[in-house]
């Protein structure tokens, strides 16, 4: 991946995710807990460097041997590598206060999660734009990605995923790139089915 491509993914994938996450709570909360996202050039470069290391290591471990080092990985695995790189760069910062909402304290996991999903979605957009005008229009109508519903008594899908990332990391388990890429694949598949008219979803009812 060249730097030009990376800069697009930084802006459309990672920066946009950071801005959206920070807007979950009000200015008062952000100020109270000094909740910020570092979008500096230094962090941008750090994420890219780390992404390249993770990507190369991942490819060497699970893909072809040395002779085939030029083989390309699919976008879910690329996005998974970005999730790990963004997590390790710790762009989100906050005041060390136990009373801060758990989402603020776990916002680096949220950023990794949503950044990787934005990147995956960006390439889904590219595919539809190139290959199917009708699906591209349906894709645009989506506005936000859809996630499977969960049953009453469970976290919503995204909250569950973010908490799981946090729990695994806090318990010192290594980032499972293969499983993460698989998760991205099925989220994308779910949205493809909606966009392409294979399934329809009902509006979410308020939780009890």
């Amino acid at each position, binding site marked *: 991946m060249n730097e030009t491509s990376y800069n697009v993914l930084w802006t459309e994938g990672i920066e946009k995710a950071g801005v*959206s996450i920070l807007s979950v*709570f009000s200015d008062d909360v952000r100020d109270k807990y000094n909740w910020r996202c570092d979008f500096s050039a230094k962090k941008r470069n750090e994420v890219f460097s780390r992404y390249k290391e993770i990507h190369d290591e991942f490819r060497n471990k699970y893909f072809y041997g040395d002779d085939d080092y030029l*083989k390309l990985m699919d976008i879910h695995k690329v996005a998974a590598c970005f999730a790990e790189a963004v997590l390790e760069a710790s762009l989100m910062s906050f005041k060390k206060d136990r009373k801060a909402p758990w989402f603020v304290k776990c916002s680096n996991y949220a950023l990794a999660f949503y950044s990787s999903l934005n990147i995956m979605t960006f390439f889904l957009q*590219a595919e539809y734009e190139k290959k199917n005008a009708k699906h591209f229009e349906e894709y645009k109508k989506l*506005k936000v990605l859809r996630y499977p519903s969960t049953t009453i008594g469970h976290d919503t899908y995204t909250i569950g995923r973010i908490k799981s990332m946090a729990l695994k990391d806090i318990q010192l388990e290594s980032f499972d790139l293969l499983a993460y890429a698989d998760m991205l694949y099925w989220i994308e598949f779910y949205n493809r089915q909606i966009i392409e008219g294979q399934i329809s979803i009902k509006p979410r009812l308020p939780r009890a």
Partner: protein
Amino acid sequence: MERSNVSGMSIDEYRRWMKEDIDDLFLINESDSVDEIIKNMNETKLLVSAVNAVELQSLKDIKI
């Protein structure tokens, strides 16, 4: 509790033995070049956001 042996091999021995033929397990996974994909896009602004406010609605109820 330790992992059970595999065909008489300890788990470490099994892993070393499998690693000699790891090529058989390598993922088949070709893709287009990310650089080419982005270069050929007309619209390079992300039009669908992964952050779904409905999904995060429950966070608004957290007492600050």
